[in-house]
């Protein structure tokens, strides 16, 4: 089903700038303290928003084929990397949108390929440089909730790609980021019906482009100067160590409740009800119709049968004497 390879040594980690490596090691150390030695991250999102690139950035290797002009990922791909007894599984998925519809079928395929896996964190990827939240976004959010259960949004990180942008005139970068992320978060909260006490969905800005600005340490930085990769991993670690339960994808979740089973035991009772309260009264009414049809005879029938039925109905013959 899923293209996955044997866990390999996480060599990509060494490719990161030293500062990033240190930050990541610190985070891994945190996980180790929490006794977490494996982490499964699911990356979901519409097509072409940069899911695969994000996976590549996270792992630090080119694990997924990416191309600038089309969605390359047609299957769910999991890459596993081991570093000092800790396993990181990142699952890259094909885009969820096909044409102008949510590709439920794709979503279903993803779900099936994840059978018996436990998802610790889900990264929902969208573009930062999108300007509006449309109906399709809502449908995608809903479809994800429907497929994996609304609980999946409790372990979600909202990843906004293409973060290195110059905002439109008159808006500062931080303003823009806030507006865009708030719009998406609000939409998600509305669609999935979050409760008051639920934790906010963390936002992580992502810039996968090789031309991304770097700071002196060679770390990729955003226009506001922050380093994004450790931040993203931090959010992931936070959720993994947080209170939200991971999602276990089992047979039951995939097949859903069997509608054929529902109410099956009541079938004999339902039939009894129909017999007593629908069929019997209808037959009774039809019998009554039949009787009233006999009563409502045309005039000729009444006249023809007059003599036999009621001789008194005929006027007595009057005899007059002259």
């Amino acid at each position: 089903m899923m293209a996955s390879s044997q866990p390999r040594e996480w060599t990509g980690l060494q490719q990161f700038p030293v500062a990033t490596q240190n930050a990541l090691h610190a985070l891994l150390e945190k996980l180790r303290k929490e006794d977490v030695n494996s982490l499964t991250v699911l990356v979901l999102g519409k097509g072409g928003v940069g899911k695969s690139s994000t996976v590549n950035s996270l792992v630090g290797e080119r694990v997924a084929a990416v191309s600038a002009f089309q969605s390359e990922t047609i299957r769910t791909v999991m890459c596993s990397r081991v570093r000092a007894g800790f396993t990181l599984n990142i699952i890259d998925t094909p885009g969820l949108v096909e044409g102008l519809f949510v590709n439920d079928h794709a979503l279903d395929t993803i779900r099936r390929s994840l059978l018996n896996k436990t998802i610790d964190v889900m990264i929902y990827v969208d573009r930062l440089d999108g300007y509006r939240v449309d109906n399709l976004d809502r449908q995608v959010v809903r479809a994800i909730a429907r497929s994996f259960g609304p609980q999946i949004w409790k372990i979600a990180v909202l990843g906004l790609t293409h973060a290195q942008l110059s905002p439109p005139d008159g808006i500062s970068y931080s303003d823009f980021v806030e507006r865009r992320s708030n719009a998406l978060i609000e939409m998600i909260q509305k669609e999935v019906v979050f409760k008051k006490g639920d934790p906010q969905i963390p936002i992580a800005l992502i810039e996968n482009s090789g031309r991304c600005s770097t700071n002196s340490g060679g770390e990729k930085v955003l226009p506001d100067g922050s380093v994004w990769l450790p931040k993203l991993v931090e959010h992931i670690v936070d959720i993994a160590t947080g209170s939200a339960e991971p999602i276990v994808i089992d047979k039951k979740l995939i097949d859903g409740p069997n509608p054929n089973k529902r109410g099956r035991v009541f079938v004999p009772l339902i039939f009894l009800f129909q017999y007593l309260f629908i069929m019997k009264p209808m037959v009774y009414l039809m019998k009554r119709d039949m009787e009233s049809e006999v009563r409502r005879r045309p005039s000729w029938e009444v006249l023809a049968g007059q003599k036999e039925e009621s001789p008194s109905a005929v006027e007595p013959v009057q005899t007059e004497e002259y």
Partner: protein
Amino acid sequence: MVSMLNPGLDLRICQRHARNAHASPAVASHGNINPLNPTSETSLGMVQKTTASKGGIKFSTPWRSSGLAAAGFMAGISGVCAMQVFSGGGNGCGGWNGGGFSGGGGGDGGFWHDILQHILLFANAEDVDRNYDSHGLKIGSPVSVTKLKTDKRYKITGVDLRDARSGTNIAPDDPFYELVTMKPGGIFTAAQFQAELDNLTNCGMFERVTMDALPQSDGTVRMQVTFAESEWQHSESVRCLNVSSLPQTKPPEVDIMSLTEVERETFMKQQESDYKERVESAKPVILPSEVEREISAWLKQEARVTARVLQRIRDQIQKWYHDQGFACAQVVNFGNLNSNEIVCEIVEGEITKLVVQFQDKMGLPCEGNTDMRIVERELPKQLQPGYIFNIEAGKKALRTINGLGLFSNIEVNPRPDEKDESGIVVEIKLKELDQKTAEVSTEWSITPGSSGWPSLSSIQPGGSVTFEHRNIHGLNRSLFGNVTSSNLLNPQDDVGFKMEYVHPYLDGVDNPRNRVLKGSCFNSRKLSPVFTGGPGFDEVPTVWVDRAGLKANITENFTRQSKFTYGLVFEEVTTRDETSAICTNGCRTLPSGAFSMDGPPTTLSGTGMDRVGFFQANITRDTTSFKNGTPVGARYIFQVDQGLCVGSKHPLFNRHQFTATHFVQLKKVEEGAKIGPPSVLVLHGRYGGCIGDLAAYDAFTLGGPYSVRGYNMGELGACRRILELAGELRLPILKTHTYGFVEYGTDLGSSKDVRGNPTEYFRRAGGGMSYGVGVKLGLIRAEYAQDCNTGSGALFVRFGERF
């Protein structure tokens, strides 16, 4: 003056009933509906009969010159209403719907008596040389008919009636002209003229009549009849009596003039008391007293009672009877003339005997195969002896017997009873259809071969074999079988078959309850609307649903349209793709061009083949009636399929649907053939649901001409529960109607409860609305429907009714 109750003065319009008056039935061709014409011209009758009763007179009339006209004449004068149905022989089923009534315009039964004699006369006259002799008389001076030469044959060019009192000719449309049988252009002998004159003299309408011939210059004669109308004293009222059971009054056999004054007095007294007795022993009539009062009302205004007045009374009374359908009722006599109250003697046409007779192909009486009880139970009781014959009862009998589907020809034929002059014998003549029929038909179909062109091997012989054995044991049981294949060389590819056994009168022929047992084995192949794409998703590979199985059910009819059917069905359902290979799942083409085969499972078992047995019941309560061709009323249908844990995966389910349709009449209209239908508001609702195991082929589908118009079959979804609501307003235009409609259908969120969610898989909306307008043109509906989901509209032409 003392009122003279003298029967000798009675006006005898008609009395003699034929001894051997076998009426010729009218003949109707299959499918035509000739409404019976019970009110054919009664007044026409009087003297023609009298002429005929004289017998032996040859005369010719222009309207019998062709055989066809003669037939029409026979029907017209037969005086007997003949009704007939011809069904298309052979496979009866198809031909029965229309039925067909034809009426010999009977009505004036009693006036036409010696019909056989009549017809023979005509037949003779037909052969007569049409030449005539010149009169050889002095032109311009009238000659009395008594003075005409007996050996000559005169041609008449015209007849004038002259009232002796006023001395003027009466208008040509005067009913008196109907008394004269001589028609312009006819050829008569002096004896015939004399007979005609005698008839006129004896008909009771006139005190005296003379007939003169006016010789014309071209050798023909013009007849001039001078008459003085009979007149009686003023009368106040009229009273109607039923004299059916009484013997006819006879003219006194003694010559009054030869009696002495005293003898005459006693004779008159005797006559008077006889008549009184007769009046008292008469039975009441069904004629309502309002008609009597109505007649009395205008009778009071008349200064004298004349023949015309009596004629008018008779016409009015007979009109009432004939309007009510009592076609054999007639006024036979007037009594108590010259008194305050005229007595009008009526024979209502009471049935004395009911005869059912089978005929062979040649129309000769024969022994029928059909059990007589089957016919008898269909006959309305109003055709039984003791009832007054009514044309509607005849029609009803025709309809119900026709409904049996056993006869190719049905005649309901009332004729005068030979034993009882006033009685009617109803004769039902039945021609049975062939009991066994078999039919083989073959056809060739040419299909394109591999190269795209038809080749020798691509010519496929196809055909069908049908057999029917009907009316087994004469109890209307029937066995029907049919096998069809479009390729006889390889028949296993595509064989359609159906075999059906129908067993009516399950509770016995004598039991009024009529339940019909039907057993059948069948197969069918249908395109599944469950596997249909939504808008913009056209490329859904088709899934065929093949069903083959056995079915046994019992139908109980309540009213004509209401029935209750229940029975068992065992069937094997196989789902196949376009290549006839069994398919297990629905599939679709992805935009990438890839073919995805993991759609909703087509069957419950998942193997592409299900076997299932279930109980099925259907109750249809239909109280609609047709008002000028459009239904008004309500119809409720409840249907349930109850799974019995029999079959693949032991399916247990309850699949039910309830449909209610109301036809609300918005405006009252008169009923009649020429009047258009009333405005009708149709309200329709349908709920369907299934609990338990539901295979995809049994899912409810939304959309289509019988669900939500404006969409394709199943375009809106396939679901576990549905709700459909529709409203249609029908407005009459001319004899048809236009309509506007709104329809809505929803899956009630139950699409996800069908395994594999075919609604979502094929991207359907799961619900939708449509509205539109249309016009009904006969059987065809042309409508424009707007689809509210995509906002587009389209024009549709459909057959039959939506509701």
